[in-house]
């Protein structure tokens, strides 16, 4: 039984990614009045495709580990529905909707983690 080997699966990393997305959107909302600011978002699909492949083996001491999340390449600029005079692409209504969406997804991931934990608890108790 591999019960306690990687007990949280992908959700542990997913929570970090969800959180990063919320950070990006909160930065968009914070900069809603900043001239020339470009709204950013996280492409979840890209993040996952960066995470999934097995990391390259570090066969030499001078090699860098590649197992970490490479989220920087997954950050994309949002295309605004309407243009603005000051070059700012933050549309506050869109950002609020996305923030709510991201918060819900964060809660969903939390829910998965919670059920994993309670599952492990139950099996350890042997009830």
């Amino acid at each position: 039984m591999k019960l306690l080997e990687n007990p949280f699966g992908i959700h542990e990393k997913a929570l970090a990614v969800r959180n990063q997305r919320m950070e990006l959107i909160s930065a968009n909302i914070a900069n809603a009045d900043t001239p020339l600011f470009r709204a950013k978002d996280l492409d979840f699909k890209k993040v996952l495709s960066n995470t999934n492949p097995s990391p390259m083996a570090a066969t030499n001491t001078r090699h860098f580990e590649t197992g970490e999340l490479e989220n920087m390449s997954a950050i994309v600029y949002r295309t605004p529905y309407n243009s603005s005079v000051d070059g700012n692409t933050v549309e506050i209504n869109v950002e609020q909707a996305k923030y709510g969406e991201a918060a819900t997804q964060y809660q969903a991931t939390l829910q998965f983690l919670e059920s994993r934990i309670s599952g492990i608890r139950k099996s350890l108790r042997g009830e």
Partner: protein
Amino acid sequence: MLKNIFEIAGTALTAQTIRMNTTASNLANAGSVSPTEEEAFRAKRPVFRALVDQSDLNAGFNTLGGVKVKEVIDSTEPVRKVHDPGNPEAGEDGFVYLSNVNEVTEMVEMVAASRSFQNNVEVVTTARQLMMRTLEITKA
């Protein structure tokens, strides 16, 4: 970390407060008069900039992504010149210079600043709820 969201929204709350303060100052000085054109009160306007690079971290900000007030600039609108010899502030030619504050613009600025402030408060509220739920994960 969720903590970063608090930091980011916090910078925005500070920036919007500064914006509201300048608006209050502008409205308070809307009626100010001066004897010369140079001394006349000019409407103040904060310039926002996103926190993007290392220099912002060196300047004491903990997280990138937020916003700061880069500078406060004077409005370039012309000041009004009124002939009012009875005014104690009048110059030798009997003219006084009024401020270039436009009350309507200031009211719009004020409402916009307070709405942006509210948006960021909402961000903090949501982040706080999620943080509390994350803390409760051990009780699952």
